[in-house]
């Protein structure tokens, strides 16, 4: 078919990254694009290039002031970061103390997942690799905590999959990448369970 079989009923991790890159994130710009109100004498000399975007708001980008936090889409932030034109403000949950709280919660409540944002794994991975110098805590420690969280949650997923059935499954607070990794397995098994279940016809079941 025109779509390769691997992509027919799921996303690739790169597509998940693409989805997450559309989310807003705070940055410290290192340059100013805001035009001074006064000073008509400059207007003839400098015709400044403006951001004209169709899929993201260009208004904040045209009003950047150095060292004043602004919210922009993650993909723009990463592009600017790459050129050294901004530093990214790490989200509140990406700190050692906060991650440790999540880990404690995960360990205490074996029946549920902690309320990490839906894109935590992807955002953490992107910031570790592309904005490691902007994080509040040393990257290797943060990496360790994120890995801990991931493994605790993976083992919980393994526990949860013992209760697969033909009708439903509740996955509160499971992130997009984790769901995406599970999807082929869970869908395959649940569909087969449904097939097996449906092989008994309804009307004869009442006898």
């Amino acid at each position: 078919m025109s779509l390769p079989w691997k992509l027919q009923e799921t996303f690739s991790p790169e597509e998940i990254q693409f989805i997450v890159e559309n989310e807003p994130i705070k940055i410290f710009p290192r340059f100013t694009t805001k035009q001074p109100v006064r000073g008509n004498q400059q207007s003839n000399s400098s015709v400044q290039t403006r951001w004209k975007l169709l899929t993201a708001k260009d208004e904040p980008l045209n009003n950047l002031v150095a060292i004043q936090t602004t919210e922009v889409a993650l993909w723009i932030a990463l592009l600017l970061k790459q050129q050294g034109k901004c530093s990214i403000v790490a989200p509140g949950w990406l700190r050692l103390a906060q991650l440790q709280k999540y880990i404690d919660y995960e360990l205490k409540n074996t029946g549920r997942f902690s309320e990490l944002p839906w894109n935590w794994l992807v955002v953490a991975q992107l910031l570790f690799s592309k904005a490691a110098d902007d994080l509040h805590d040393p990257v290797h420690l943060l990496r360790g905590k994120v890995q801990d969280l991931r493994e605790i949650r993976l083992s919980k997923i393994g526990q949860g999959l013992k209760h697969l059935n033909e009708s439903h499954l509740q996955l509160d607070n499971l992130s997009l990448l984790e769901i995406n990794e599970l999807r082929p397995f869970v869908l395959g098994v649940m569909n087969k369970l449904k097939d097996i279940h449906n092989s008994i016809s309804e009307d004869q079941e009442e006898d």
Partner: protein
Amino acid sequence: MSYYDIDDILADATKIPCRFNYNIPGLGYLEGNIGHDIKKNAKVELPLWLGRVLAIVGGDADPSSVGEDEALSFIELITPELLAPRVINAIKSGPATLDVRSINSHFYALAVKWATLFNDRELVEVLNYMLLERSQEIRNHASSIDLENLAQGRDPGTFMLTLDEFEKVIYRNSHESCKETKQWMVQK
């Protein structure tokens, strides 16, 4: 299970033992005697796609003989070897160690078809249990090397050789998914 599904076609080609309820002229080739008649009570192995239809359609399609209480179908299906009680008992005792592939490489598909034909509730329960238990094992193998088994000296490869066709698809898809996620996490 769609019309063009290759695995479904292959599953339908499995031979099922059947007994004829009528003398039928000219059908001897099903038994191997070309040109002869088939006798009542003759035991013949027919592919499921043929047996399924013949077990439903009756000999009394002629409207004049409606008087009879029940229209006897052309053939009667006999429980095949792959669903014999000893197989069912083996499943109940330990699905993960069962060599499904040696029983039949399209075990699930056939079992579901059988359960549909006979409305077999007990079989459905056994299948449900079997699928759940084996899927745990499949997931372990798909996501990583099973350290527990390695520690016990069991070769993880042996389980993979027992998978039926449906389980292989599940394994391949989930392994691919885990692998791609891991690659993405590492590459940066």
